[in-house]
């Protein structure tokens, strides 16, 4: 496999009143599994349906109903594990996590505490070209989502919708390897990208299909290295968990606030309490959820309704064989095969549909850098202006490749290419035919250009003398030639010929 080499980024340092401090961050990301039906029932997972319409008697926890596992959800979790280079546990088991809440009719969540499906893996989190952080994944377990409570529809009542109850989630747990707010956002972005490449989660954060619990602690410089050497958490500070974040911007702001809060406590001689906190974006602060925490005693035990989940190595191997090319590999291949900069390769591989579009362009146009420029600058720029997605692009890869081929063949100038692109974008059509029909063709016939240059020189002897004294005046001749040829002369050829004829 192709790999790009990278250096480790420096951890973020926050200056307190007394000392410098570093951050240590671990994340638990809940990713909704992309599936038709729920984890243990045949009800639909579709978002935005009538309340309580995607609910079976299993989800509503009617007496006597038993869970039957959706094998595809397990396949999706295994695929995710393989995509994160993680070990797959052929035997895993389900446990009950007990608590009462109106949107959890069973009174427990079926999860995997003791024997998760997926073990240790890793994610390479890109920060900038050549700089990336390797974040270790501790585990991925499969569990049920809860329903939704709506508190603002009535002054005295909460309204409960069980449509989301029982939808399959993957909880992806990282080690505390993330060292700053920007890295935390980049971690979520990279994880989301991988999940979308794999097709195991749509990554829609707005709908809550990807949400994170963020564990934050602070330590003095040097302590983290001691932890890494020994894996002994006593070298690190006490952590607080910020629950249920579904915006990359808020994740960064919450971490920043939380780190400063902890620094203030420790520098003031106090002690950070290990607790769960909620971020309030309106006030930009985190607040303790302690009242709830005290009531929480989950009393996990193995779920008696479900046998252990045994899967076969051959099945895992089949899934592994069907994995798509993942972002890191695709990026490395784009750099190597098409001569792209890592930056351009990053942009083009951010979404798998963008990468596929670019590949179709580049294979037809046969010029990596030119294709990358046109896709990123012209096409993406134009689509953005119309608030369009690449899947709605009015310009097909073949059309864009056609324009690029005309540029490469020196048939049209860069300026003409932009005009041609706009015509193809708004009107459609074959670029070559349009260029031909509208006379968009730069004159590269040196004979014709020479004639034009000769005429201008002959008509302006005084200017010729001046130009011989001051070579910068050659530009005047180039301008005259371009004018005489209606802007169709190849500017580079004109430059060269003017210089030669003037003896510069």
């Amino acid at each position: 496999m192709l790999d790009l080499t990278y250096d480790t980024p420096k951890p973020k340092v926050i200056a307190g009143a007394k000392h410098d401090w570093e951050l240590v961050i671990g994340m638990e990301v809940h990713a909704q599994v992309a599936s038709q039906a729920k984890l243990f029932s045949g009800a639909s997972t579709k978002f935005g349906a009538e309340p309580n319409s995607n609910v079976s008697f299993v989800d509503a926890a009617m007496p006597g109903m038993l869970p039957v596992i959706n094998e595809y959800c397990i396949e999706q979790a295994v695929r995710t594990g393989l995509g994160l280079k993680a070990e797959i546990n052929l035997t895993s088991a389900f446990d009950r996590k007990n608590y009462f809440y109106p949107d959890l009719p069973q009174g427990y969540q079926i999860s995997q505490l003791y024997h998760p499906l997926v073990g240790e893996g890793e994610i390479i989190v890109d920060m900038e070209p050549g700089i990336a952080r390797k974040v270790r994944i501790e585990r991925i377990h499969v569990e049920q989502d809860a329903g939704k409570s709506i508190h603002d529809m009535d002054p005295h009542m909460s309204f409960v919708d069980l449509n989301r109850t029982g939808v399959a989630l993957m909880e992806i747990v990282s080690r505390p390897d993330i060292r700053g707010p920007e890295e935390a956002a980049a971690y979520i972005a990279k994880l989301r990208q991988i999940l979308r490449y794999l097709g195991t989660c749509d990554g829609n954060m707005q709908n809550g299909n990807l949400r994170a619990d963020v564990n934050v602690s602070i330590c003095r410089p040097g302590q983290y290295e001691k932890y890494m050497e020994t894996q002994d958490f006593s070298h690190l500070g006490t952590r607080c968990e910020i629950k249920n974040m579904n915006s990359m911007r808020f994740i960064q702001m919450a971490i920043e606030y939380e780190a400063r809060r902890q620094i203030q406590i420790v520098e003031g001689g106090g002690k950070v309490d290990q607790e769960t906190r909620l971020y309030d974006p309106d006030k930009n602060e985190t607040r303790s959820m302690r009242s709830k925490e005290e009531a929480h005693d989950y009393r996990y035990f193995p779920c008696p309704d479900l046998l252990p989940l045994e899967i076969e190595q051959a099945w895992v191997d089949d899934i592994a064989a069907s994995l798509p090319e993942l972002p890191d590999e695709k990026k490395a291949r784009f750099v190597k095969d098409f001569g792209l900069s890592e930056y351009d390769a990053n942009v083009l591989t951010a979404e798998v549909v963008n990468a596929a579009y670019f590949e179709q362009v580049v294979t037809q146009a046969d010029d990596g850098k030119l294709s990358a420029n046109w896709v990123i600058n012209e096409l993406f720029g134009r689509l953005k202006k119309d608030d369009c997605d690449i899947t709605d692009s009015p310009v097909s890869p073949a059309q864009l490749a056609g324009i690029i081929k005309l540029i490469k063949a020196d048939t049209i100038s860069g300026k003409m290419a932009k005009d041609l692109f706009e015509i193809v974008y708004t009107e459609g059509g074959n670029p070559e035919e349009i260029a031909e029909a509208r006379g968009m063709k730069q004159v590269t016939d040196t004979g014709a250009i020479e004639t034009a240059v000769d005429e201008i020189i002959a008509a302006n002897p005084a200017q010729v003398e001046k130009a011989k004294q001051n070579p910068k005046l050659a530009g005047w001749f180039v301008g005259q030639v371009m004018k005489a040829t209606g802007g169709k002369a190849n500017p580079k050829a004109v430059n060269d010929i003017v210089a030669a004829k003037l003896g510069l």
Partner: protein
Amino acid sequence: MSIDKETAAKVAKLARIKVEDDALPALAQEFNDILGFIEQLNEVDVDGVEPMVSVTPMRLKRRTDGVTDGNMQDKVLKNAPDAREGFFAVPKVVE
């Protein structure tokens, strides 16, 4: 392991079952009797014995990923003490 009055009260609270204070000592005693009975199992030597999860060798039953259930809002809400506009309506719970 011995269950005292406080532990009995905590378990009752976690289970959302109201137990009057004067009933707690008897409840704690009942817990102790049950646990004492179960603790007899500790006398059995199970070193090197695989935990048995099923009496007959069975594989966890699976379903395929198809929508086969749901679309019965009225039935789901039928037993609810209060339901409005398709939602279960419960006394206000806000964190």
